[in-house]
């Protein structure tokens, strides 16, 4: 793989992870808001639509990455989204984070890495 291809690959990987995290955060924010404002509220629809768009982008980037890399190489990076989403939810959605939750998420991520390496 040339240097340029590596840079592109890293960029696509990063974008895939970021769109997954942002998409889930937006969906969560929208659905939580929908319990008080109602789902048809313009603000909720906008959040929901952007969230679905972000997840759609991550979905197609995943397929693109799968065409270039082995699943076993690519999967561990997806496993890392568990920890990233847990921490992002604490920062951006002000969800309470316990030590137990962080340890549990780390274990799940580690398990996914082991599963994909074998």
């Amino acid at each position, binding site marked *: 793989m040339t240097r340029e291809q590596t840079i592109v690959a890293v960029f696509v990987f990063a974008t895939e992870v970021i769109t997954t995290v942002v998409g889930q*955060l937006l969906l969560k924010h929208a659905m939580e808001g929908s319990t008080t404002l109602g789902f048809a509220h313009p603000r909720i629809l906008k959040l929901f639509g952007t969230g679905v768009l972000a997840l759609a982008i991550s979905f197609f980037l995943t397929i693109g990455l799968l065409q270039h890399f082995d699943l076993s190489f690519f999967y561990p990076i997806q496993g890392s989204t568990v920890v990233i*989403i*847990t921490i992002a939810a604490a920062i951006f959605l002000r969800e309470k984070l316990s030590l137990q*939750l962080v340890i549990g998420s780390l274990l799940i991520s580690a*398990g996914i890495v082991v*599963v994909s390496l*074998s």
Partner: protein
Amino acid sequence: MDRGPRLFPNPWLLLVFEALFVTASETLLKVGASRTERVAGWEWTGLLSLASIWIWCAIALVILSFLCWINVLKYIPLSIAFPLSNVVHVLVPLSCWIFLAEHISPRRWCGIAVVILGLAVVAKPVAKIEEKL
């Protein structure tokens, strides 16, 4: 934590259904994909698999799992729901093992065990909260 409606749709039950639908859809996608004939130049698009009834069932299950997921998000914090939704990394290999007779290496079984341990660690405080209510 807002627990939402008491009976159906209970958000925790929906989370279980979401995981089961994802597992079923992944398994059916594999069945559908492996039964699709390979035509040179087209195989990478995956579009030819649309001729398989299994693929359509899988698509329906993906939609169902998404509907469950967004309703889970109404009531369960993302930092709990998302780690727990990763139970699919246990269920999908099990489903492949049981229904598709795929081989699972010892190291993979170890990985599955670590994921289960992580899920248990995340779920334990949740169970305590639910007990108090």
